[in-house]
């Protein structure tokens, strides 16, 4: 069914009895051309672009839980292209362009809202670093405006400008940045992939990867063996475990990242705002909840929940920056398992096994990357050639010492 305004009207008049399930629930077939492990944002987008860009149809996405139950449904939904390093810049720029056409492309409302991202800075040094980043963004063809203190005050009147410990010097404004509805992105890609014949198989955990003579031949799952000529690993925080099934050891450690949401409030925060002196960033969802988060808990974890010290730090940092939110009540907090690389940048590459591909290491920034990653990974799987914007996301860059350390924090998994 094609979604449209007319359709909503017609269904409304007919008591909304005509809506059908949005994707099929197929039994796994014994064999596929391509099996994608992981039904998160990246896995679903990869399946969709394999079908749309490369005309491939005999594809299954295997998901151990339910579609969108992983990080794609747990993130704080920020979409931006404000990267600095060659390698990252062109990739996120491409991804943002795909976002801008995504709703028309998928025929699905993903509530992409380009409300602008403002990164605040609080010292001369930080201003210089952001000015440089802004120039890199403009060179890449994206948008960046350096705001001074008064510029910030006009756009963000509710910040505490009297604070003397970390005074607000200004902000780097990225007008095309913003947010999107995270679940809708998973659902939109799932529906569009299903419509192009991709089998989305839920409750199907991959437990082994079959390899013969250095070539992948299929996977073992909780719903039986499935043969495949090509297998793609896209399992975010579980990358280490699934890669180990193929004897692969990754430059990845899984860490916990928490986020928080308050009760619904009238619109008060119109942009995405990040604090430059504490771990805190915030936006307001369309339901009115203030959605905010901070940094990792810093130790390796698969618990999908964090501890109180980081929760406390995030709240403190938030109140320092915008005291008005102190009146809001926090409704929920949660955590997601992040696949952290030692340089903070991702991996889209082949592996030492013929026909086995991997897409991982998105750290805490992989939501904005969903379209770009799906597009580039599909290109690699279909053609065996790296897609230009993602050509530097190589698995062996660590060994070769060619890191993509965007934040310049050094080679340690928890520092990005």
């Amino acid at each position, binding site marked *: 069914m094609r979604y449209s305004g007319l359709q909503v009207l017609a269904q409304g008049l007919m008591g909304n009895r005509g809506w059908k399930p949005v994707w099929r629930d197929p039994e796994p077939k014994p064999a596929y051309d391509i099996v994608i492990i992981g039904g998160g944002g990246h896995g679903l987008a990869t399946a969709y672009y394999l079908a749309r860009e490369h005309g491939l149809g005999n594809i299954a996405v295997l998901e151990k839980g339910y579609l969108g139950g992983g990080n794609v449904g747990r993130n704080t939904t920020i979409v931006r292209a404000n990267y600095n390093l060659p390698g990252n810049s062109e990739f996120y720029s491409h991804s943002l362009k795909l976002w801008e056409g995504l709703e028309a492309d998928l025929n699905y409302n993903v509530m992409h809202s380009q409300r602008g991202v403002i990164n605040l800075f609080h010292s001369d040094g930080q201003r210089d670093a952001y000015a440089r980043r802004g120039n890199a963004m403009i060179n890449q063809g994206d948008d960046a405006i350096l705001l001074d203190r008064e510029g910030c005050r006009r756009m963000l009147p509710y910040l505490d400008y009297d604070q003397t410990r970390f005074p607000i010097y200004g902000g780097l404004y990225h007008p095309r940045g913003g947010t999107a509805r995270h679940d809708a992105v998973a659902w939109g890609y799932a529906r569009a992939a299903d419509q192009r014949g991709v089998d989305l198989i839920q409750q199907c955990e991959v437990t082994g990867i079959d390899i013969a003579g250095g070539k992948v031949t299929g996977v073992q799952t909780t719903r039986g063996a499935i043969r495949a000529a090509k297998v793609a690993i896209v399992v975010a925080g579980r990358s280490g475990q699934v890669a180990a099934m193929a004897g692969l*050891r*990754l430059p990845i450690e899984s860490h916990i990242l928490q986020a928080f949401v308050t009760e619904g409030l009238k619109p008060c925060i119109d942009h995405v705002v990040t604090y430059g002196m504490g771990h805190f960033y915030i936006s307001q969802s369309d339901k009115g909840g203030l959605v905010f988060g901070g940094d990792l808990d810093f130790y390796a974890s698969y*618990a999908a929940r964090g*501890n109180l010290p980081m929760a406390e730090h995030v709240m403190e940092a938030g109140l320092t920056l915008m005291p008005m939110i102190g009146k809001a009540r926090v409704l929920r907090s949660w955590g997601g398992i992040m696949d952290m690389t*030692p340089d903070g940048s991702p991996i889209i590459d082949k592996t030492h096994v013929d026909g086995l591909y991997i897409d991982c290491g998105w750290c805490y920034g992989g939501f904005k990357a969903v379209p770009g990653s799906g597009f580039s990974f599909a290109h690699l799987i279909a053609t065996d050639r790296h897609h230009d914007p993602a050509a530097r996301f190589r698995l062996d860059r660590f060994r070769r010492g060619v890191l993509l350390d965007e934040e310049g924090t050094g*080679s340690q998994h928890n520092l990005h």
Partner: protein
Amino acid sequence: MRITCPLCGDRDSREFSIRGHETYLDRPAPDAGEAAWDNYLHLRDNPAGETAELWYHGAGCAAWLRVRRNTLTHEVLKVDLVRDLTGGDHAD
């Protein structure tokens, strides 16, 4: 999460900072080659379950500790002084 320091006793985890997996105890020789350094700096087993890491008791006795922990439950299983494991060398 609380950590029992062998010198200071049971303490809030905020008193400690983490360095990373205990791989950091095995620093390769400068000329050990790409593979050894890749292993030391980047590659990780990344277990879902028991792991061993280096923690520093900065707000306490300033000792380096090896903490055995469960990454699924956040349970702390065993804490040793790195000094006792390496015969005096600290983490780096």
